């Protein structure tokens, strides 16, 4: 089985054209790979570029330099230079993502928000809803909320919807951006269980966890992102 994801020499900076074109380097020389059945954790202080790295791997941020090779449908694709259409196909089939915040759509129920990635992959809507119900029950989201649009939910409730949406599919790669930030201890433990199940199923996980206990429980390997600080490369 090929390595699911290999990142080599990736660099990212922001050019602020509205601020006289100043350039804010974020990371440089980012190189690592992740393995199937393992949870790799990006470590380092806030502002080190952890989220930016995840967003580049999801195609949400553009990449200035380097390659992101992902194993997708019996082939290898360089996400750093892929067409929008290819990135969409990779998101549908290969890379899942749990973001920090839920972007809600007006009038769509929590259940359908969660079922959507499965429906996009061709699953029958009712079967997808069934799977969504099971996940919401596991994450202790009160049943009376399931049919409501999540826009008015509390932070912790929205995050559980987000987690369910990310974990519902069988993407071989799963990116997690602080999935437990606003959860209580019980639900943190549920997420730890969900991550363990993904590992057992051979999924390659890459995440950011500020919560020390969660990180201890799930991490197989920690990558220190400060090693990719833009200044270090020149030195």
């Amino acid at each position, binding site marked *: 089985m090929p390595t699911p994801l290999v990142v080599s020499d990736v660099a990212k900076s922001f050019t602020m054209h509205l601020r006289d074109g100043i350039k804010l380097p974020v990371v440089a020389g980012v190189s690592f790979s992740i393995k199937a059945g393992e949870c790799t954790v990006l470590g380092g202080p806030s502002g080190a570029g952890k989220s930016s790295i995840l*967003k580049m791997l999801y195609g*949400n941020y553009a990449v200035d330099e380097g390659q992101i090779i992902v194993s997708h449908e019996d082939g290898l694709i360089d996400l750093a230079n892929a067409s929008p259409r290819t990135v*969409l196909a990779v998101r549908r089939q290969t890379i899942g993502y749990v973001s920090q915040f839920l972007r809600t759509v007006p009038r769509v129920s929590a259940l359908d928000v969660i079922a959507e990635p499965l429906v996009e992959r061709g699953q029958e809507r009712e079967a997808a809803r069934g799977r969504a119900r099971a996940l919401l029950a596991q994450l202790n989201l009160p049943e009376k909320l399931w049919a409501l649009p999540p826009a008015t939910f509390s932070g912790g409730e929205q995050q559980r919807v987000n987690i369910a949406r990310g974990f519902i599919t069988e993407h071989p790669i799963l990116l997690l951006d602080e999935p437990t930030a606003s959860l209580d201890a019980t639900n943190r433990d549920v997420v730890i269980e969900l991550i363990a199940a993904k590992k057992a199923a051979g999924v390659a996980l890459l995440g950011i966890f500020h919560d020390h206990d969660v990180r201890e429980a799930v991490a197989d390997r920690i990558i220190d992102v400060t090693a990719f600080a833009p200044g270090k490369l020149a030195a």
Partner: protein
Amino acid sequence: MTDEPLLRVSALSKFYGSRVGCDNVSFDLWPGEVLAVVGESGSGKTTLLNCLSTRLLPSSGTASYRMRDGQFRELYRMSEAERRFLMRTDWGFVHQNPADGLRMTVSAGANVGERLMAVGDRHYGKIRATAVDWLSRVEIEEDRIDDEPRAFSGGMRQRLQIARNLVTGPRLVFMDEPTGGLDVSVQARLLDLLRGLVTDLGLAAIVVTHDLAVARLLSQRMMVMKDGRVVESGLTDRVLDDPRAPYTQLLVSSILQV
């Protein structure tokens, strides 16, 4: 997934005398894809939409469309009759002002039924049943079927226009500011409706809007236009979350936060 695009656009330009309408625009559109074209007024986005929908002929460039038989046809080489047929059957055009896309003095049911008759449907009962079905899909009560759109609110008219366009099962829909001029609550309902229909029917759509929130909600891909040129294009969330071109950064930073 189909490996061939539905629409191929290459170096499309439209000049009004020495003034630039749109300049050297190229892109491919695949089935099921929604492309948002954003930019301020005068950026050329409506000119581009009108050229693509053959309501306007470009000064230069080509656009070819994959017909239902799988063959690509050059849009600007078709006869007027062929283009009109395409417009009536395989395409839809949702105008910003519903009065431009509806017949205001015939009933709601007839507005929907007319497009069906254009594709050869003749059975009155069947046409009426389909019209009722489509009105309910766009959330218009069955008992309004015999009312004229003149008696409808702005949001209802827009939903009726959408029903009229989608009833023939088009594969490509053009939309010009589909939520422009509507109240925010009506807008949200319409967007949600459009989003559902586009996903369920697997439509390809080109949506012109100056509203980045509309683009984010409806489209997977986005083109940003300024002075007739495409200054940036890519995945919608990439363009909005990591804008690269100075003009896109200005647009994104100008969004009011609520």
